[in-house]
Each structure stands twice: as structure tokens, then as C-alpha cells.
């Protein structure tokens, strides 16, 4: 990443709220981050942390009069928040493409695979003929590793396996050479062996096209596999962000410790129960005052009723930011649980 070039995507203080029957849900609460060309940024968090809403907002996908947006999201010189429908339409699928979680339901069941890819190409390149578009579809499908692509062009989605469908989705996302690819839990619905193949495709693609990738996931294994930088979200806020290795080996926020502590490790003692973070994520209708993680945090103290800023606390690591009032030394001491990074449980964890 060169310092002079502006980032591909720059999100600043993004807020998304949904008005519901019972009150306002602040789904995204002041999120800021950047994505550069050729960079894989992973957004990690539990369901309900706002990571999917953030991703969808970039595509202008949350619809309905009950949603309100604030902040800015600048993509390649274009402001996405508050952009007109037509502006967003031009960017969707061309500048920014998206791969969704469930490949089984993300393709329209009544159209042939080839036609669905062609539809996207022709939505952005009006002059291209159908035959040309089909040719490109074959190339794309071969590129993402679909065998006998020319033949399978005429197949319907239900004739494909889940992994193959996700490859189709990726081929489709690539069809207009996007500069940014958003992958929302792209491997969650797939078998472990297929997961690795799909991740390999994503990596190859990043290397070949120099596109930026936002990977939304709750799976830290996937993150470790592919991400350059990691953004940890909790209850609508970014609680920590940094370079992959820093997040994994020197995590700053107690929530991140909890996440890391709950991964099964081959080298860990099998006799121990897998620790989980105690409690439940807060309701976003009435989030806790101050730090959102406070009610679940065993290390919370008086100061935590004030909202901690997202700041750098580690010397010589300006890219590492976190939202926690604990001092660095305290963090280092507290995150050691049974010789590993983890969140100490204050109460017995129900297995």
C-alpha cells in the first residue's frame, strides 16, 4: 500500500439505523475503515454485529423507508451513501460485486446459469452481443474452475452442487472486472473441503485482478487463511482492527480475546471444555451505556460506562486500533488464560 494513492474504499463514521415497531435499531454505529487495491479485509463478528449490514450498505442493498443512513463511504471517487438509484445501479455488479452466503438460494432457479451471467454483463455493457457475452461467461466459468464450462452454461442452478454454485456466483461477480469484491460469508454454507477451494479461488482472483476484497465472516479459520487485515465488529461498532498477525498474536480488545479463545486448537489440551464468551450480545434497541461489550466483559471497570474511542494504543503500530479503556500492560496480563489468549470466565460456562 503506497501512502500517496488514495484507498479504493474509505468508510467514515457510517451509521445505519432501522425503525421498527419497538423502536430504533442502531445496526451500524459509527464504523470507519479503508480498503486498498489488492487487499483482503476481513470483517469478523457474531450475527447481529452489523457486519452484513455494513457490507450491504456499500451496495445500497438495505431498502425500505425504515432505514436511515449517515456518514460517508467513498468508493473510487464516488460517494455511496445517498447516491441516486441509478448511480448505485451502475456501480453494483460493475465497480463493486458481491458474493452471498447461500449459493443454494442466491441464483434464480428458473434461468440457465449462462443467461444469468450474461444478464449481468449486459446490464453494464449495453453494446456487447449475447454471443460475445456468452463467450465471456465460458471464460469466467473456466477461470473459477468449473469443468466443461461451455456445456454447463446451459444448466440450471439446481443441477449444480453447492460448491459449484458458489463458483458460478464468483464467476458472475467477476464478469465486469470489479475493483472491489464483497464476499458475505461465502463459505459458511459449504463443506470444509469445498471451503478451501473457494477461498483459493478468491485468493487467486485477488492476485490476478488486484481487486480489493471485503470478506464478511464469523469464521476465524477463514480469516487466518486469507485476510491481510482484520476488522472486529461487536454490536454495531468496530471494537478492534489491525493487521492479521497482530490481531491473532497481540489482540487488544477483550472481545477479540474471547473470539480467539473459542477456536479449537489442535495443540490445546483436549480435556478442557471449549470456552465460550458468557452471556448474549446486547439488544440493539437499547444497547448498554458506554462500551457495548461491558455487560459480558469480566474485566469491566467504572470507566467502561463511557464510550471508549477507537484509538491506537500500541507503540509503533499505527494501524492497530481498538476500543478499550484498559491499559496495554493490563491487557497483556489479563488475556492470558491457561497459557493462551482467551477471555477469563467469571461464571461457570454452560457447555
Amino acid at each position: 500500500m503506497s501512502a500517496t494513492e488514495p484507498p479504493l474504499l474509505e468508510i467514515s463514521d457510517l451509521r445505519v439505523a432501522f425503525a421498527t415497531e419497538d423502536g430504533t435499531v442502531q445496526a451500524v454505529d459509527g464504523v470507519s475503515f479503508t480498503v486498498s487495491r489488492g487487499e483482503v479485509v476481513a470483517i469478523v463478528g457474531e450475527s447481529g454485529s452489523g457486519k452484513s449490514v455494513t457490507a450491504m450498505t456499500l451496495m445500497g442493498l438495505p431498502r425500505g423507508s425504515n432505514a436511515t443512513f449517515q456518514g460517508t463511504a467513498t468508493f473510487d471517487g464516488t460517494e455511496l451513501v445517498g447516491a441516486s438509484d441509478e448511480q448505485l445501479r451502475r456501480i453494483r455488479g460493475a465497480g463493486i460485486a458481491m458474493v452471498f452466503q447461500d449459493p443454494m438460494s442466491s441464483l434464480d432457479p428458473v434461468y440457465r446459469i449462462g443467461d444469468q451471467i450474461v444478464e449481468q454483463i449486459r446490464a453494464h455493457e449495453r453494446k456487447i452481443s449475447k454471443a460475445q457475452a456468452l463467450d465471456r461467461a465460458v471464460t469466467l466459468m473456466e477461470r473459477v474452475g468449473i469443468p466443461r464450462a461451455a456445456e454447463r452454461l446451459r444448466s440450471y442452478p439446481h443441477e449444480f452442487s453447492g460448491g459449484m454454485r458458489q463458483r458460478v456466483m464468483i464467476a458472475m461477480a467477476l464478469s465486469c472486472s470489479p475493483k472491489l469484491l464483497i464476499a458475505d460469508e461465502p463459505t459458511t454454507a459449504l463443506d470444509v473441503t469445498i471451503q478451501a477451494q473457494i477461498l483459493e479461488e478468491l485468493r487467486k482472483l485477488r492476485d490476478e485482478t488486484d481487486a480489493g476484497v471485503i470478506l464478511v465472516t464469523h469464521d476465524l479459520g477463514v480469516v487466518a487463511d486469507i485476510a491481510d487485515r482484520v476488522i472486529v465488529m461487536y454490536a454495531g461498532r468496530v471494537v478492534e482492527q489491525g493487521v492479521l498477525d497482530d490481531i491473532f498474536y497481540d489482540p487488544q480488545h477483550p472481545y477479540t480475546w474471547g473470539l480467539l479463545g473459542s477456536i479449537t486448537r489442535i495443540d490445546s489440551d483436549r480435556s478442557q471444555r471449549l470456552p465460550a464468551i458468557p452471556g448474549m450480545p446486547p439488544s440493539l434497541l437499547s444497547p448498554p451505556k458506554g462500551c457495548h461489550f461491558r455487560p459480558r466483559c469480566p474485566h469491566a471497570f467504572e470507566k467502561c460506562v463511557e464510550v471508549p474511542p477507537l484509538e491506537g494504543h500500541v507503540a509503533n503500530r499505527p494501524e492497530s486500533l481498538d476500543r478499550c479503556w484498559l491499559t496495554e500492560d493490563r491487557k497483556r496480563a489479563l488475556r492470558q488464560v491457561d497459557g493462551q489468549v482467551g477471555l477469563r470466565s467469571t461464571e461457570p460456562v454452560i457447555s
Partner: protein
Amino acid sequence: MLRFVVRRMLVMVALLIVISMFTFAMFVLLLPNGNPAALLAGRLATPAEIHLISVRYGFDKPIYIQYIDTMKNIFTGQAYSYQSSFNVLDEIRAGMPATLSLAIGAGLIWLLVSILFGTIAAVRAGKYADRVLTVLSMIGVSMPPFFFGAILIYYVAYKANIIPIGGYVPFSQSVGGWFGHLVAPWITLSILFIGFYSRVLRSSILDSINEDYVRTARAKGLSERQVLIRHSLRNSLIPIISLWGLDFAQVIGGGAILTETVYNLHGVGELARDSIGRLDTITLMEIVILTGIAVVVIGAIVDVLVAYLDPRIRLA
């Protein structure tokens, strides 16, 4: 696709046999002492006379022979009304043009108008247009066709003299007359279905908005109109077409009895009503069986059509 069609045809034949047996059983078993001869002979008939009639019509034979004979007569056009001695098939044939004209015209109207109304209501959901259409469709599904027909006959035919009072003019005789006599029946019959279908389509489209593939379509950069027509509507039409197949088939089989009667169209439906009036069981049975055939055959055709629209069904 071919395998699907063949399998669907086999199911169709099986269903036809079941339906004809059921209908036959209903007519024969529900008659007094299981013997239509007593009914035919009248109240004052002697047992000997009843016996004579039994033999003549074959009522003394075992029930399955009677069933086979009846079916043979129906399908070879040899069935005669016990009451009027008319050939039943000829009578039905005479009613077919009116019924077909009614069914095809109304079927097209109610399908197209429902798609239009349902789509508008879904796109404008919660807005003024949606509310108006909702009210209209609520009135539509609550309106008995003979009442609406009577209103049109009174206000538009008697008072305003715009349409004829009733009856049917064959297409071959006068195209204008044919059309003029059918406009009101078409509208009357359509209203009921439009009310129902447009509601179904509306909620189906609104449900599809939450489907993943519609989200994908939007993420591809299609315009709202393209997303709506190519994806939401295209998928939502599948259940509508299935529904339409059954209803259309029932109307062809004389199911629009109320509309046919209020407008005196002399179609198959009105024939069914008349045969009930004179307790003409053989005519009624033949109409009921023909309706069954129409529903099953057209149902099979529509299923093939739906399989064409929805590739998942073909391989299911």
C-alpha cells in the same frame, strides 16, 4: 422433459379412472335402493314395471358391468337421457361453443388483469394505488357472480340499453353479436378470479423481494424494473399459472354455472342446472365426468407448461 410429460399423462389417466368411478358411485349408490329404475318408473309403478325398466337399462346387472356399460355409452356417444331421450353428447356438444367462448375470453381477461393489478399493488404496496386495488379485490372475492350479473343486466342492459339482456349468439352467425352478448359474462366471471389472483400475486411478489436470488439480481446492477419483471414477477407467476389451470379447466367443464345461468348462455353449465331441475341423472353424470376429464387433461397440460416455466419441476 419427455419423461416428465409421459409420467404426467399416466397420472392423468389414473386420476380419470378414479374420478369416473367416484362419480358413478355417487349417482348409483345414492339413488333409492340403489335402483334408478324405481325413480324412472315413477311413484305409482308396479314392481313388474320397475323390473322391466331395470332390465331395459341394465340396472339388474352387477354394479361393475353397469359402470363399464355406462362409461362405454358415455365415451361412444350412446348415452341417452332417461327423461328427454335426447342424446346426451349432442346436448353437451350444443352447449360447448357458448361455454368455450365464455371460458377462453374470461380466462384471458382474468389472467392478464390479475397480473397487472397484482404487480401494481405489489410495486405500490402501502400506497394509494395499492389500497384502491385491495378494496376492489376484496369486493371482487365477496361478489356472487349471479348478483353482479343481475346488476349489469338491470343497469347496463335494461336501463342503459348498452348490452343485450342475455342469451348467446354463435360466432359464426355474427361476430359483433357474439362479442356483445359475451362482454358482460366475461366481466362477471372474471371479477371473482381477479380479486383472488391479484391478492395472491401481490403477496407472492412481496415475498419474493426477500428471496436471495432477487437480492443477487439487484447486486448485479439490474434496474428495479428488470429485477421486478425478470426475477420477482417471473417466479411469482408460477403458482398463478397453476391456479389458473385448475380454474380455467373447471369453467370449460361447465363450472361457471352461475354466470351461464344468469345470462342464459345455454352452455354446458346451464345444461347441468337444467338436468338437475328435471332429475336427469345420466346427463348430469356425463357432464360431471366430462368436467372431471377437462380438469384433469387441462391440469396436465398446465403442469407441463409450469414445468417449462420452472425447470426444477422437470427433474423432480
